[in-house]
């Protein structure tokens, strides 16, 4: 929440401001989406100008978003990152999981990463030490350009469709062909058809990745096994896919 984005810019007044900002976030969470600036300033007994300034700073940093009519506020997806920053790093995966990953890494040239999906976000819990994955912020800022992010987007769409079941709008969203207007990426329906996500050139030009979903018994996405490699290996990945699928099947009972 540094207004200037400078890491050393913290000064004495800021702890108070950070406290107020968190209080505002808390209030938006309590009141639910659509709460107006005036309601927030009344509920928290904050001076109007202060409340509006705090809200605008939180919108600038995308912790809050304005509702389409511009009057109300809702929590932005970015608060999840905030939560993931303050929660302790996930524990190392169990020995049995690491043994499987080591075996896969020994057999396949390329980066093999294990991703955990939780709280509507993703976290690489076992990155390949020899081929480190791209920066987390890059992946989170453009989810649709990485295979591991595309699994998450696909999962969110599916959830949205089932939540809105019966409402025509929700079903249309899931089946809408225009929803995948970005010509550089393959349509997300491939994940449904082929059972994995892939992309080429989305994060690093000349490279691509494949992400195999790992689901629990109810079908919820809990983890993903990712392979990152030069593009020609991703384009002709038929042999690799079988190995990866086998690995994912072995990992599933240990992670779900």
């Amino acid at each position, binding site marked *: 929440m540094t207004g200037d984005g400078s890491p050393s810019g913290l000064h004495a007044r800021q702890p108070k401001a950070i406290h107020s900002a968190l209080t505002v976030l*808390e209030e938006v969470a309590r009141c639910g989406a659509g709460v*107006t600036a005036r309601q927030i300033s009344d509920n928290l007994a904050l001076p109007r*100008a202060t409340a509006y300034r705090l809200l605008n700073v939180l*919108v600038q940093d995308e912790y809050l978003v304005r509702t389409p009519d511009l*009057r109300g506020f809702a*929590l932005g997806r970015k608060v999840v990152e905030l939560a993931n920053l303050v929660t302790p790093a996930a524990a190392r995966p169990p020995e049995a999981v690491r043994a499987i990953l080591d075996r896969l890494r020994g057999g396949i040239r390329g980066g093999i990463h294990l991703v955990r999906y939780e709280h509507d976000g993703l976290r690489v819990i076992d990155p390949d030490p020899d081929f480190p994955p791209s920066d987390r912020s890059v992946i989170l*800022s453009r989810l649709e350009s990485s295979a591991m992010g595309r699994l998450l987007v696909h999962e969110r769409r599916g959830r949205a469709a089932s939540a809105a079941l019966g409402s025509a709008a929700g079903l249309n969203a899931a089946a809408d062909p225009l929803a995948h207007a970005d010509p550089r990426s393959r349509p997300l329906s491939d994940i449904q058809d082929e059972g994995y996500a892939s992309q080429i050139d989305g994060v690093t030009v000349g490279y691509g990745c494949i992400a195999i979903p790992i689901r629990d018994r109810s079908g919820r996405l809990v983890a993903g096994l990712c392979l990152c490699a030069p593009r020609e290996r991703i384009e002709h990945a038929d042999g690799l896919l079988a190995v990866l699928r086998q690995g994912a099947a072995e990992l599933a009972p240990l992670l779900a």
Partner: protein
Amino acid sequence: MTALDRAIRHPEPVRGFAERSPVDGLDRRSVGFLDVLAQSVSAVAPAAAATTIPLLIASAGGSPVWALASGMLIALLVASTVNQFTKRIAATGSLYTFVSRGLGRTASFVAGVALLVGYGFISMFALAGAGYYLQILLGDLWPAAASSLLPVGVLIVSMALLCALVLARGIRVSTRVTLLVESVSVVIILVLVGALLYQNGPTVDWSVLSLADATPTTFVVGAALALTAFVGFESASTLGVEARRPFATIPRAIFRTVIVAGLLYLVASFSQVVGFAALGRGLSSSTSPVNDLAAAYGIGGLGLLLDVSIAASFLACAIASITALVRVLFSMGREGLLPSALGRTHARYRTPFVAVVVSVPVLTLAAIVTIALAGGVWRAMEILIVGAAGGYITAYTLACIAAPVFLHRIGELTLWPALRAVTATILLSVVLVVYLVSESTTDRVPGVWVFLAVMTLGIVLYLVRHLRRPWLRHAVGIYDVPVGADVLGAVTFGTAPVDGAGETDAAGRLGKPAAGS
């Protein structure tokens, strides 16, 4: 953090957010702060203005340094008022969209026409200016080219082609090119100014800043002319869709553009005034003050560098102004106010390329016709700049009136922004009237008439089109809304409606984008 914690772990389904924004198709959230800043700075073209505006002010009897300082003050007031919108709305229509959110559609037509006149005329002015200075350079190498109008025409057409190519190729390409070009020209100006002040020695005659000769009229005329040196600073707001973190980067870019340009103008005008005072001449006795000064102080070789810098600054200005222009056209095309083809984007480069393909030839042709009719490049530029300044200041005035109304509508009106907006409105109205009246007493009077004629014609055309399409009433003023992917727990539907037709159950709770009624 109980409620927040709960919201993160088990997000409540939030309805009313679309999967795609109504301005989908542009390269959403792709350019950073430097690119946004480059857009605004280049549209202002500080290097070109720093060398020409002080002379204009001095010729009108004003004191350049004081006039530019007061112009900067007005520009800061306007910037802070425009930023009330840019902190809350991410749009490509800039002031046109903003005015529609405060004052409704009729006022937004006027603002839209004024803004298109501003961007369009300044693009033609900049193309002509780049051609003019390149011809001077060419004339040094090949004297035969200096006199006729044909080489200028060829230069203008080839630069317009370059602009179209850069613009269609993607927003990142065009902002990077303008950033590079504009930085080079500002550095050249600063080197020249530094050299002038150094040559002038340590004794500075501060009495040149005296306001003893000024009358209220010359002061106001000076301030009005000075404000024209700043116009274009708001153009970063046309990148609302393409900027990353637009609510942070765009307001900052707009404010810093005014500060950077203002400081450059103050230093440049001060050095010119001091330089001429030391020579015992008046600034207005020169036709090309910085060149004359460079020659008088024995650094004439830098004059050539200066011409390169001004030509480069004009070219960057043309690219930036057309960038802004096509995004306003794109917005109007998406709304249906203009043919919907203008709202189409290139599938791969994600730019509003139909608007580029249509507007660049029109602007080029209009610039060449103006030059032919006016009988000279410089003469055409004088006419075009009047139209551009009139358009910008009209749009600023409407935006400053709209800001408090908009803030009141969304329930966020507070005292200081309202006071700043009212002050800016009053000052801008005075400046607009004084500017047009004072220009109509000079030989630039055709510019005033062209401006008034184009404004009237544009507004009439809009009203006619609007009468034939009454449903457009709901569609005016689209902006980028957060899509499902930005919102915690969003349950999305197709595209956010730009008209009433798309409203569904899912859209019901939070409402479609507020109609401009």
